[in-house]
């Protein structure tokens, strides 16, 4: 498979896996928590690597290492933030901020000490979409399967946990469990994607497509579908634009960054379009 198709495939797969869980994260108002996770997975991976490599000689990018890392990151972040809020009675925004900056600082320090290389931290944030390999596609499609499976299996539960917690409790659905499941899925998506596109693009994919889709439709299944679709569209356009700039102007730009910018551009365009469409309604509200 050629490099460009591979890039498009990997980015689209990541876009779909983000689009599947992003709407639930935004609706539950925990996107800054996803931002936390995108920082803390560094420590999670470092810890998981130390753990698996001593136990059974696992590699840094083995599926088992990554999943353990995602689980550890989600667990540590959620646990510490809750401890600060509940036990230490710190306000929520400060708890979130304190936990992820501290864990990220720790992660950077640990990684620097073990690898004697600062650039790993930079790669983690920025990603490098231009050295993708076939196994990245395998990892990304695994993510899609995992998120798709979880969302289809527990669609009702997620929906209830987002919109009506008390009804969920009456029906005996554990909101805490599904909250954590969602965070775990977000963490594994960040981890699966961080090598390919950087955690930053994951954030853009999680929030941006949903915000755009929300301007045009209001039902959850449609929102999830369009979030995925807009993410895929942005990835295809992003890769094409990046390729075009490289061949036409000899300008090698970060593909992940371009996709994030494109999502921003799409949002602005979508705002304008929705304004234009809404205008007649505001002029003649009684015609409706």
């Amino acid at each position, binding site marked *: 498979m050629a490099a460009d198709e591979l890039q498009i495939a990997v980015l689209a797969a990541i876009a779909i896996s983000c689009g599947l869980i992003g709407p639930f994260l935004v609706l539950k108002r925990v996107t800054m928590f996803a931002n936390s996770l995108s920082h803390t997975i560094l420590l999670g991976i470092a810890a998981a690597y130390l753990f698996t490599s001593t136990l059974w000689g696992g590699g840094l990018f083995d599926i088992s290492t990554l999943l353990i890392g995602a689980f550890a990151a989600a667990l540590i972040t959620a646990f510490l933030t809750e401890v600060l809020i509940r036990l230490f009675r710190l306000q929520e925004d400060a708890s979130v901020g304190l936990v992820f900056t501290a864990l990220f600082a720790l992660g950077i320090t640990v990684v620097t000490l073990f690898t004697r290389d600062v650039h790993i931290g*930079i790669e983690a944030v920025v990603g490098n979409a231009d050295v993708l390999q076939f196994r990245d596609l395998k990892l990304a499609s695994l993510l899609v399967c995992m998120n798709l499976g979880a969302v289809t299996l527990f669609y009702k539960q997620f929906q209830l946990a987002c919109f009506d917690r008390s009804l969920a409790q009456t029906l005996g659905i554990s909101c805490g469990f599904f909250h954590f499941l969602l965070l775990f899925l977000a963490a594994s998506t960040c981890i699966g994607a961080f090598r390919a596109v950087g955690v930053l*693009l994951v954030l853009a994919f999680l929030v941006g497509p949903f915000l755009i889709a929300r301007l045009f439709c209001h039902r959850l299944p449609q929102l999830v579908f369009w979030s995925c679709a807009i993410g895929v569209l942005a990835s295809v356009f992003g890769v094409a634009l990046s390729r075009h700039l490289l061949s036409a102007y000899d300008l090698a730009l970060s593909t992940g960054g371009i996709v994030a910018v494109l999502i921003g551009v799409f949002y602005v365009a979508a705002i304008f379009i929705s304004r234009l469409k809404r205008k007649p309604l505001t002029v003649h509200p009684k015609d409706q």
Partner: protein
Amino acid sequence: MMISFWDFFIDPVLRAPTWGCILMCLASSLMGVLIFLRKRSLLAETLSHATYPGAVIGVSVFALLFPLHEEWTFIAVLGGAFASSWLGLKAIEWMEEKGKVRTDAALCFVLAVFFGVGIVAASAMQSALPVWQKQVQMLLFGQAATMTDVHIAIYGCLALTAALFLFLTFRPLQSSLFDRDFSISAGIPVSILDRILFWLLLISLIVGIRSVGVVLMSGMVIAPAVAARQFSNRLQTLFGLAALFGVLSGFLGNYLSVMGSLAFSQQGQKMTLPTGPMIVLVGTIFALLSLMFAPKRGLAFRIGRILAFRLRCLRENILKGIWKKESLSFDQLKEAHQISPLFLRYVLFRMKREGWLSRKEKRFGLTFDGRQKAASIVRLHRLWELYLAESLGQQVENVHRTAEEMEHILTPEIEERLTRLLANPTHDPHHQPIPEKHESILGN
């Protein structure tokens, strides 16, 4: 190579990073207090990421215009970073107000898109201006080591401007923080004040990214404010303490970074511990220690207070139990109070030594003081039961449980008033006699 403590302040190579870190931490911790009190700490995270594209574009433009003056690049960094973080702030405000997007989603979205622009611009620099790229790359995690005396002057001016402004506008600031509506009606220009404060926040962020880096800058804004909040309710003290914690973590972080790099480099190859993570780690340690051990608010203090109260309840319950049965053996006490026998033995030993209990033939009885104390507790218990039943109309079967708790809490003043309210009663709702009030109760 040996480095003495004072070298960090005067040595021509070391002093610039030290003073730079101290000054920038001072500015960011002062501004941190303000957004912490507004409960918008995460704004700092987004705005610090939003500085990145401006800084990169600023450096690129500077490189094209003045390719020979690399030492003045930081001016371009400051200018560009300010402009783009201001745009980021406006974007967040617009999304919240006009776009009807919730705060967390708006913050996350603006962060991702702006940082994306930064990354695209940085990758463009990498291919077009590869020599200048390290000027930009070090902004991600900060690099204090390459600062010079010029930086001290500029950063010092900016940090002191922020501090001076806070000092001069302290009164109106205080009233606008704690009672916005009152301040508006009192004629304080709250919206102008707000705007200037946000500008100062942006200034403290763009000063900070040089030594802490855009990725971790928010930690340096939040941590000192968290630590300071544990110690005081007064705004002056908050600012003072936050500045102190900020300055300390700035200095110690830089110190650790320099000394750590030296220590690890001796084992063969050279390596640098990045300054930003070190400063943030030190700041977080201060915050955690304050959260743990600060008087009154700290976790250790609160747990201590709870344990002390539980111990008092246990002692009073022991006295009460013995009072009702005249004397009890250790086994009977152990059955009544489900705690570890060892701890119970210790409590009994202490109570005996303090003169509440006496021990005869392996059974515990009460001394005169103990009897009085126990009687007063039983009196409180039964008074409360009577109060619940008569004055509040509670069912007689339900009053015992609340009274079990209230007997440890009621003060002599409330007892006095209850006695008067219930007309000095003699029997509780279960027809048990209420002990007389003794004036000569000792202790506790």
